[in-house]
């Protein structure tokens, strides 16, 4: 099992991701995965054992060898910052080097945050009741609590996001609200009363734009200058995949007539677990949830500054903000990461430990072509973690030709190549039984 995946932003030469397993009984591992240059294979670049199960993992944005984890050892929660030793390519799984332990927490730790927009010798950790700012010294391998503030007993923080536009602003999610804190004063600046937020992400391109995912009502896009109402709302995910057909022309026409930014699309809304804004193209939002699907949304730019302009554009815009829904998952999807190096690639991680990246061979020059690309199936690359023997399956789906190859990724050998150019994706299920394959 696995829950979290993180883009290795500091790695400028490759598109790589870090992910960690979540297993109570077995040994836990951290996987460093790299997408091959053709985008058709996910290669395991490093496999490191981790002392306990990983609930949160994020890669340091300025040093590709440093990352942080939040773990649970059966009894207590802990958080630490690790360094990957320089032992690439060796067979035995090396030990991770612990740079610092962030142990000043008293209750359930939720996540560790890095500031994405530059080098900052600080990180934030959040537990259910506290917000802690750590100052890191990677040379002395130490971390000190710079400041801490208790949010209060009853808020039950669930996570947060660090504003990439303002190094002093952090958004925290709690049971009943989204809270905005200033790190200089360590005071709460603002609150949006909005319950059951699961995940929150800032738009890296546009200031003041925040995206939240909720248990019940899907995905909301907020303009922080107008925090009363969400500027947009998507149905998000439900326990099953349901393509909402409710956006009838009649409804959209009505909304166009109302001089407001609010746009509602109703469908099913339950349990959206993760939401991520694209680092390059604003308005492109990825969400994952319990319906075993990843949805790609396009938020209309009307959340911006000039409502009059957006009103004119609205009729021309896509009536359905859902660009595509990727449903090739067997279990709930909890982890999502856009590649910051190649922002037309994203990785998703489902609970069963499968990493699926979706990429497109042609580099899109404009958002429009990108969207057009996303509407078709690109290249799926699948990588499976969480098993003792590691298997990676790579599916290259190009309309009619399908190539399926299994390989033992540790030895990087193709164990079971098969080329079936006359089958379609849908026929995949009728393949020879797994038992036959594994032998």
């Amino acid at each position, binding site marked *: *099992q696995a829950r979290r995946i993180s883009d290795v932003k500091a790695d400028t030469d490759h598109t790589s991701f870090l992910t960690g397993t979540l297993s*109570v*009984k077995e040994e836990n591992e951290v996987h460093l995965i790299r997408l091959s240059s053709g985008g058709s294979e996910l290669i395991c670049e490093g496999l490191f054992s981790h002392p306990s199960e990983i609930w949160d993992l994020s890669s340091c944005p300025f040093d590709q060898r440093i990352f942080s984890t939040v773990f*649970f050892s*059966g*009894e207590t929660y802990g958080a630490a910052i690790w360094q990957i030793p320089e032992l690439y390519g060796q067979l035995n799984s090396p030990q991770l080097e612990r740079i610092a332990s962030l142990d000043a927490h008293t209750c359930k730790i939720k996540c560790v945050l890095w500031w994405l927009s530059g080098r900052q010798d600080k990180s934030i950790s959040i537990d259910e009741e506290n917000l802690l700012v750590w100052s890191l010294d990677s040379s002395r391998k130490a971390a000190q609590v710079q400041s801490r503030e208790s949010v209060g007993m009853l808020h*039950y923080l669930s996570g947060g996001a660090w504003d990439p536009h303002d190094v002093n602003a952090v958004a925290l999610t709690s049971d009943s609200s989204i809270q905005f804190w200033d790190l200089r004063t360590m005071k709460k600046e603002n609150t949006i009363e909005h319950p059951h937020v699961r995940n929150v992400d800032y738009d890296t391109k546009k200031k003041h734009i925040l995206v939240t995912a909720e*248990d*019940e009502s899907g995905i909301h896009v907020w303009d922080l200058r107008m925090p009363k*109402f969400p500027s947009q709302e998507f149905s998000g995910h*439900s*326990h*099953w*995949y*349901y393509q909402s*057909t*409710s956006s*009838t022309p*009649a409804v959209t026409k009505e*909304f166009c007539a*109302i*001089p*407001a930014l*609010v746009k*509602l699309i*109703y*469908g*099913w*809304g*339950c*349990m959206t677990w993760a939401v991520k804004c694209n680092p390059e193209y604003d308005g492109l939002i990825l969400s994952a949830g*319990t319906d*075993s699907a990843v949805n790609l949304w396009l938020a209309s730019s009307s959340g911006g500054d000039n409502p009059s302009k957006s009103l004119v554009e609205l009729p021309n815009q896509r009536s359905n903000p859902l660009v595509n829904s990727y*449903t090739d998952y*067997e*279990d*709930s999807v909890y982890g999502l990461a856009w590649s910051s190096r190649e922002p037309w690639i994203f990785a998703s991680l489902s*609970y*069963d*430990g*499968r990493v699926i990246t979706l990429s497109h061979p042609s580099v899109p020059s404009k958002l429009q072509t990108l969207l057009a690309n996303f509407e078709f199936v690109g290249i799926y690359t699948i990588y*499976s973690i969480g*098993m*003792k*023997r590691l*298997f990676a*399956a790579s599916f290259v789906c190009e309309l009619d030709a399908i190539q399926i190859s299994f390989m033992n990724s540790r030895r990087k050998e193709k164990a079971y190549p098969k080329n079936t150019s006359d089958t379609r994706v849908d026929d*995949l*299920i009728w*393949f020879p*039984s*797994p*038992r036959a*394959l*594994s032998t």
Partner: protein
Amino acid sequence: MGTEELPMDEKAKRMRDLLSSFYSPDPSMSDSNNSPSKYASLDAINTLSFDPDRYMNLLVHKSNLEGLLQRHVEMAAEIKNLDTDLQMLVYENYNKFISATETIKTMNSNIVGMEANMEQLLEKIMSVQSRSDGVNTSLFEKREHIEKLHRTGNLLRKVQAYGDSSFRDCKRASEEAVLTIIKNLQGKLFSDSESIQSRAEAVVLLKQLDFPVDNLKSQLLEKLGQFLSQLQLEQWEMSTDSNRSNEPSNQGNAEATHEASMREFVEALRAFRVIFPDSEMQLVKLSTELLTKKLILLIHAGVVWTDVLLIDEVLPEAGLADFFLEAAHVAIKQYVASRFSHLIQDISDSLMAQTREKDGEEYSLLVTLEASKKTVLQGSMDVLLVKFENPGPDFRQLLDDKLDLLIKLKGYVIDWVQGGFQDFFRSLDDHFLFLSGKDKTISQDQGITDGLHGEKVLAGLVLVLAQLSVFIEKSAIPRVTEEIAASFSGGGVRDYEHGPAFIPGEICRIFRSTGEKFLHLYVKMKTQKISVVLKKRFTTPNWVKHKEPREVHMFVDLFLQELEAISIEVKQILPQGLIRRHHRSDSGGSTTSSRSNPLRDDKLIRSNTPKGRSQLLETHLAQLFKQKLDIFTKVEYTRESVVTTIVKLCLKSFQEFVRLQTFNRSGFQQIQLDIHFLRTPLKEMAEDEAVVDFLLDEVIVATSERCLDPIPLESPILEKLVQAKLARTKAQNPPTS
């Protein structure tokens, strides 16, 4: 410093003196100051009485050679200085002389130019003088004339003062006379007793007297208007009377009075027309007004046309038929609109009645639904009937007189009614959305803070709305369509060029999607409610330090209670679906996968062994290739479908919450026990047993995955605990069980 400056000063002074003495020839001045003989000193050199020989002698005598030499040098220098100074003076003077000569020269030339200018100036002054003389002479005559006029004016003013008073008297007398005449004539005009002829004469006379007849006319019209309203009052009474008691005698009576008053009106009209032959327009207006009002009141009485005919006699030029047509248009349009808006109000009232009565424990969704259904259907039928049956006699009467009018009118009526239905159903749809609180945008934008939106919209209401939408789609609209077709079967109207205004297909589509939306909303609301219960259940205890399970946890009761309530609600409203229980075999091979119950227990036990691991790998690979289980199907409008959907959703939530926790053996066993207890009632409730089974298994699998030591309870113990629980609930509420 002072000592050094003094000699300098003295020297300069001496020089100046010397020079000044050079210019001033008066020797007496200096003489008086320095007498030459008095002292023979070396200073005498500066005086006028200077004698060089004596000076030389003195000098030679007094000083030695060196002194002499020095003296010589000094003298030589002094002489030189004086020489240059003299030269300078001469030069300066010469300079001044030259410049003076030059100035004189330029002055000379300037004066030559000036002479010509002076001559010009003189000329101009002369011309100015001559002009002013001319003006003076020319104005003289006019001045004389003005003076004359002024004198005449004074004279006239005096004359006027005398003549004034007598003329005024004359005028007043004549005006009075005219006034009395007018008064008399007016009296004559207004008195009904006078013959029309004389009244008309009076008007003519009044007109000749330049009296404002329009004013009179309007007064008369007002009078007529009063008469009209009186007439209407009678009419109203009559109709209410006839409504109240359908006795024929009474009705006849009323009709007789109506006829009488009508005749009176016509008489008055006739008189008016004779009196004011040029005021037909106003009359026509008046009578159309009357007819419009009448139409509204008496849309279903056949009297109107006779009235029209009567008035038509009086005012043949008015083309009253056209006006009637127009009036009828307006009236029917208004009528249709008001009918539809009333209908919407009725429907929402009957819906809201339920919300208001929610405090009282007994509110039946079924009753509400039925009431609303009835309102919708009855209301639309009413509209149809009123429209089509009752104007009928009218039309039939008309048929004898003017065929084209009928056809025209009928066409319009059809159009309006159809359009009206279209709009009606559209707005009904909007209204439903508003009621369900879905249209948040509208309420936000307009700032409507209804009490309705303050509180949470009742889930039951949503369900009712869903079912109502379906009802409208399935039966109300076909019936209305049928009715329309029946009523206008023989219509043959020209308005079908643009296609019919009422498009049942579109309305059906709208309501179908609305119904779906409501159904989904209902499921969502209910699921959320249960999800909160589940969430509380999983976040409160410490699952790692859970104690051994002794009984089924009470949250199960809450869960079942909630589901029970839902199924009661649903049962009231939604129809029973086809009984098609999905057994495991029906759902295809996928459900009977490695996750089926007995196999799973084996797997759980073995999962710690190396062999277990390889099995885990196998299930993992199996998952890769397994067909995605078709757990979640479309929600249908049957009670089973809705309940099943909710159960499925809740179980999935259950699984998700489980995945967030870590369990010890007892925690796992507790979950196992709870699930075991839930299995039977849930299967009874839900339509798809296989899927529910599968989802319950999923929960247990998820728990075992998150468990440090997943050793399940043995089934006898499970059974025992479940039985204990059942026995206890039976004991607590024996009547219900």
